[in-house]
């Protein structure tokens, strides 16, 4: 899962060095469009729609990993 997140972040923003503790806004300096583009890439990969209010609760990469696990979202 971490590798997938790293790949998507790189594809969308060109940024590398993502770890589970990486904060999307503080460390990667992403703006709202960058975040939405990353979310879109995730949604396309998993064929799953993530509500906006859930998106803003995910601050660091680990939050995304936990969310996907907790929601039982599987690769499509």
């Amino acid at each position: 899962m971490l590798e997938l997140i790293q790949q998507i972040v790189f594809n969308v923003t060109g940024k590398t060095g993502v770890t589970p503790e990486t904060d999307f806004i503080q460390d990667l300096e992403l703006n709202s469009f960058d975040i939405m583009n990353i979310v879109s890439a995730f949604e396309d990969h998993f064929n799953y729609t993530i509500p906006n209010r859930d998106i803003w609760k995910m601050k660091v990469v680990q939050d995304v990993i936990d969310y996907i696990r907790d929601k039982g979202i599987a690769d499509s």
Partner: protein
Amino acid sequence: MKNYPYYDVPRYETFLQMMNVAKKYGDKPAFVWYDRQQEQHTLTYTQLCKQVDGLKEQLLAMGLGGCHLAIVSENSLEWIVAFLGTVMAGGIAVCVDIEQSDDTIRQLICQADSDIVVASPTFHAICAPLLADGKIKKLISTATGPRAEGYESLDDLVAQGCALPPTPPVPKTKDDVAAIVFTSGTTSKAKPVMLSQLNIQHSATSTITMTDHGYKYFSALPFYHSYGLSCTIVNTIVKGGTLTLNSDLRTMMRDIKLAQPDSAVAVPLMCEALYNMLWMVLEKQGKADEMRAVLKRYRTFSRFGLHIGQKKLIAAKNAILGPIHVLISGGAHLDLELWQNLNAFGIGVYQGYGITECSPMIATNRNKACRLGSVGLLVPLCELKTVDGEIWIKGPNIMKGYYKDPESTAEVMDGDWFKTGDLGYVDKDGFIFITGRIKNLIVLKNGKKISPEKIEELIGHIPMVKDVMVYGAASGTSTDDVKPAASIYPDPQQTQGMSSYEILEHLQTEINKINATLPVYQQVQMINIREKEFNKTASKKIKRYDL
């Protein structure tokens, strides 16, 4: 560069006048949106008027004419119908900021004495406690079928109302309050701004009488802000145009391509996103280097009034972004470089200036009267003066006051004059320039504004914090790009024996807890520790600009 006559557009004082004329636009599309599957949904003027009338009749039949109806929803066709139906039933639409926390959303609903809430499914659970506690009379869903989760749907109300015999229009004057919109003040509570029928109509007309931006518009601006309300929904109806609305940044670029609008009403972040999109596609096409050279040549020669290479730039823009040729930009300062580059690609960018308390339009640049770096010319029927450098405004755009808060209203008014809190001047041709703020608001590139005092109050409760100042720290390469940061002077007694690293680590943990209670854009992203106390005024306030 001089001003020139206003474009001839209808001018209304009340929503009834506007909707009576709207009926004549018939089957012309009024509002369009695309769902996640790219399916187009359209509301024609005939359908819009019928649904608005239906909701009006049903609200009156339920004894809810004149009610306060809170709308808690993403941008949608239902949002528009709920707003207009409420106003036509003689009520007041309460436009709730949905990016706030759950508790704040409930607090805003109650602060405006809302009788009913119309909510999208995302917000059912957040609003339901108010129904359970008897603080609101009804919770209506914008959804239908199973997605309405058992709540009455707006569609049902509209259908019931359409089956009723029509009643005479509810008489309202131009000075009657039509909407309550929330703004961030310099204290901890959001202020409920009362906007009259004329306030909103005046702002809507101002945008289209001062700038010609065609008939096909696009906007992703939230409707619950006065900018989105007046300058996208209402001005579309006034002009008889077509607005493609977007409620999800994920599909914004896709929707622009589908809608092929003439213009977009935006904030600087959206202007930048469009520009970046252009270059991303050019890179993929292998044309980026060539276009960079063309752009550089154009920028060099345009200083001498020569437009060498612009045809090529415009052709590239048309192929990627479609016919869009006007961007109305507001909410925050627009980067000059971006402004000039978009112009080079044939997209006229017209920076404007507004404040919620002014409905919001105060000034805007115009198609043939545009001055880089300025926020444009004053809107019609208004007056401007500066008092000790601060811009004061008078005119039909000034709010009716803050709801149930005459003290706060008195602080910002001097007779009919509204004190903007912004510093600025007017040049010899009438162009307005903003030079600073008396208010300490941090303005983000996406138009969002942060009251530092509110966050400072939260951080100040941390025992080891003696003093704190929240400010906008530079982020990225542009000076317009800022992020919320906290400068903290730790309490010497509380931190005795602790290393700087330990202090920082502890503060980060505490601030993370505070951030969890705030909307994302307000969250502190950087902390720095001061070794000496802040410079303060005689009344012990931190001198923000004297660090």
